C-alpha cells in the first residue's frame, strides 16, 4: 500500500498496522536499532524532564486560537458594522465580493438541489484550492468554531477523567465515513440538506453572526457528551465536514512531518492529538523512513509540534525549505 492509500484508508477508519519489515529503509533500520538500545537512568530522566518542560508549550495553540477567533470575529464585525468585507457565514460567504462555500455544505446543496449555480461552483472550487494548499483539515483546527469549544470541553474532560468523573468511550472511526455516505445519500434521495440541520459548525457560525438560537442546545448536547462520555467524539468519529476536508488535504503540500532520528518514542504527541492514529508512526519500530508525513486525518493543529520535546514533529510546506 502506498503512503497515500494508507493515509486515505486511515482517514476512512482503518486502524494503522505494523509495517512490513521489508519496507524499512536502511537509514530507518539503523536509527530504530540505535533507539532500541537500553537507555541509562540518566538518559531516561533527561527524557522525562524534557517532556515535562515541553508539555506546557502552547506556541501553536495560542496562534491557532488567535486565527480561529479572528476569522470568526471578522464575520461578526463585517455583519454588525455593515462593512461588507466578509459577508455570510462559514457555510457560504463572500470575501470582498469573492464567493466562498464550505465544501460539505456545498456538496449537500449540490446533491439535494441537483443544479449548480456558477457562484456556488466558483465558491466551492476557491475553497477547495485554498484548503488543499493549507492542508485540508487545517479548516477544522484553525477556523471551525466548534473545534475551539470542543478543545475547551476536552480540557475539562481530561480534568474530570483524572478524577474519575468522566469516561472515554471509543467508537469505530469508520462511523464517520458511514455518516458521510448516509448524509450524502440522504441529501440526494430526499432532496433536503439534512446534515445542515445538525451541523455544529453552521449552527455556531450563524449564532455568532446572527444571534444565538435554540439550535445551540444541540451543540451543547454534543459538548456535554464529549465532556462526560467520549473525548472529542464529534470531531473524531462523526463530523462529515472533517472527512471532506481530510480528502481535500490528502495531497496537500502543507504537512506535519515526523523525523525519526531524534524521537524518544515517549508518546507525548499522541496524548494531545485529536487523531492519534495518524501519529502511530511515532511508536518504536513503526516509521519506515527517517522523514514521514502525517496522514490526511491530521488537522495541522500543531499540538504535537509544540509538545514534542525533541522537535521530531515539524510543520513542513513541500517545496519550501530543506528537509532536515
Amino acid at each position, binding site marked *: 500500500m502506498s503512503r497515500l492509500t494508507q493515509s486515505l484508508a486511515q482517514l476512512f477508519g482503518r486502524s494503522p498496522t505494523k509495517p512490513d519489515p521489508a519496507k524499512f529503509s536502511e537509514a530507518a533500520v539503523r536509527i530504530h536499532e540505535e533507539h532500541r538500545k537500553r537507555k541509562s537512568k540518566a538518559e531516561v530522566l533527561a527524557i522525562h524532564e524534557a517532556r515535562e518542560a515541553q508539555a506546557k508549550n502552547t506556541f501553536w495553540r495560542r496562534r491557532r486560537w488567535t486565527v480561529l477567533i479572528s476569522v470568526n470575529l471578522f464575520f461578526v464585525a463585517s455583519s454588525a458594522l455593515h462593512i461588507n468585507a466578509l459577508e455570510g457565514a462559514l457555510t457560504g460567504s463572500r470575501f470582498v465580493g469573492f464567493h466562498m462555500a464550505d465544501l460539505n455544505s456545498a456538496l449537500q446543496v449540490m446533491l439535494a438541489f441537483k443544479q449548480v449555480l456558477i457562484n456556488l461552483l466558483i465558491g466551492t472550487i476557491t475553497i477547495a484550492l485554498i484548503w488543499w494548499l493549507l492542508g485540508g483539515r487545517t479548516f477544522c483546527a484553525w477556523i471551525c468554531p466548534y473545534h475551539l469549544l470542543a478543545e475547551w470541553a476536552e480540557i475539562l474532560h481530561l480534568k474530570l477523567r483524572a478524577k474519575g468523573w468522566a469516561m472515554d468511550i471509543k467508537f469505530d472511526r469508520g462511523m464517520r465515513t458511514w455518516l458521510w455516505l448516509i*448524509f450524502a445519500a440522504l441529501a440526494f434521495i430526499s432532496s433536503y440538506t439534512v446534515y445542515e*440541520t445538525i451541523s455544529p459548525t453552521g449552527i455556531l457560525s450563524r449564532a455568532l453572526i446572527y444571534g444565538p438560537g435554540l439550535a445551540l442546545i444541540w451543540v451543547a448536547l454534543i459538548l456535554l457528551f464529549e465532556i462526560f462520555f467520549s473525548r472529542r467524539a464529534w470531531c473524531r468519529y462523526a463530523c462529515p465536514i472533517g472527512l471532506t476536508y481530510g480528502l481535500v488535504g490528502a495531497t496537500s503540500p502543507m504537512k506535519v512531518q515526523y523525523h525519526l532520528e531524534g524521537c524518544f518514542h515517549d508518546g507525548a504527541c499522541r496524548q494531545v492529538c485529536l487523531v492519534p492514529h495518524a501519529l502511530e508512526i511515532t511508536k518504536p519500530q513503526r516509521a519506515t523512513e527517517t522523514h514521514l508525513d502525517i496522514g490526511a486525518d491530521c488537522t495541522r493543529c500543531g499540538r504535537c509540534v509544540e509538545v514534542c520535546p525533541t522537535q521530531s514533529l515539524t510543520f513542513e510546506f513541500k517545496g519550501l525549505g530543506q528537509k532536515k
Partner: protein
Amino acid sequence: MSIIKISRRKFLKSLAFGSAVVGAAILGIIPAIKGWVRKMRPPGALHEDQFLASCIKCGQCVQVCPVDAIKLADLTDGIGVGTPYIAARDQACDFSCDGLQCVLACPTGALTHEINYAHEAEMAVAKVVAPTRCLAAQGKGFKGFARGPEFDGKLRYNEIDRWNPIPLNEHPYDLESCDLCVRMCPIEIRISMCEAGTPPSGEERQCPPEHAIQMVSTGVSESGYTFLPEILDGCVGCGVCEMICPVDPPVIIMEAYPGSGRIF
C-alpha cells in the same frame, strides 16, 4: 472477554451513536418537510421543496436587506434551521433596495436570479381576513403612528429619503379615511412613480404591469363613506399592507406558499 466481543460491543456503540446523529438530523428537518409551519420566504425564493434543497443557510440575504426584513429560522421555527424567512407583521419587505439585493446575494440560487424587479416576486398570497375590523370599512380615518410609538419596523418613504428607510414611529399620519395598505403598497407606489414619469432608479423595467391593491367603495356609514381594500393580481405578497395595518390583529395577512410535504 474475547477480542471479537470487544469489537462487537464497539460496533454496537458506534451504531447507537451514528443512529442518534442521523436521527437528530432527520427529526430536525421533518417539521420543515411536512410544512407544519409555513413562513414567508424572501423575494425570489424557489418553491418550498426546492428552496429547502438549495439554501446553504449562510444568511447573506439577511445582511444585505436595508430594512432587516429577513430573519434566520431557529430550531423551534420548524422551517429548517438557518433558512431565511420574513415575518411581515414585524418587518415586511418593501423593496427599498430596488435591485433585489437578497436575490443578488444568494450564492446558490435558492432565491432565483431569474427575477430582477419587485413586481416579479411571489412571496405570499395576501388575504383580507377581517373586513369588519378594517377602519375604512367602518368609515374611519387614522391619526398617529401606524403601529404606535413603540414599534421599531421601518419603511422607505421616497419623498423623504430614497436611500434610507425610516422608522414608522417617526412618521405620523392623519388620514380622513384609512388607506394605509394601499398608500404604502410598494407595487402601487411604483405604479404612481411610473405614471408620474419618474420610475424607480429611472428604469422603465421597474414599472409593475398590474395593480396590486385598491380601495373599493362599499357605501356610507354613520361616520362617513366606507371602503374596503381589495387584493389584485399584481400583488406579490411582500407583506407591507400586513405590517402597516393599524388594526391589531391586522385586516390583511400574508399566507405563505406551502411545500409539497413529501419526504422522498
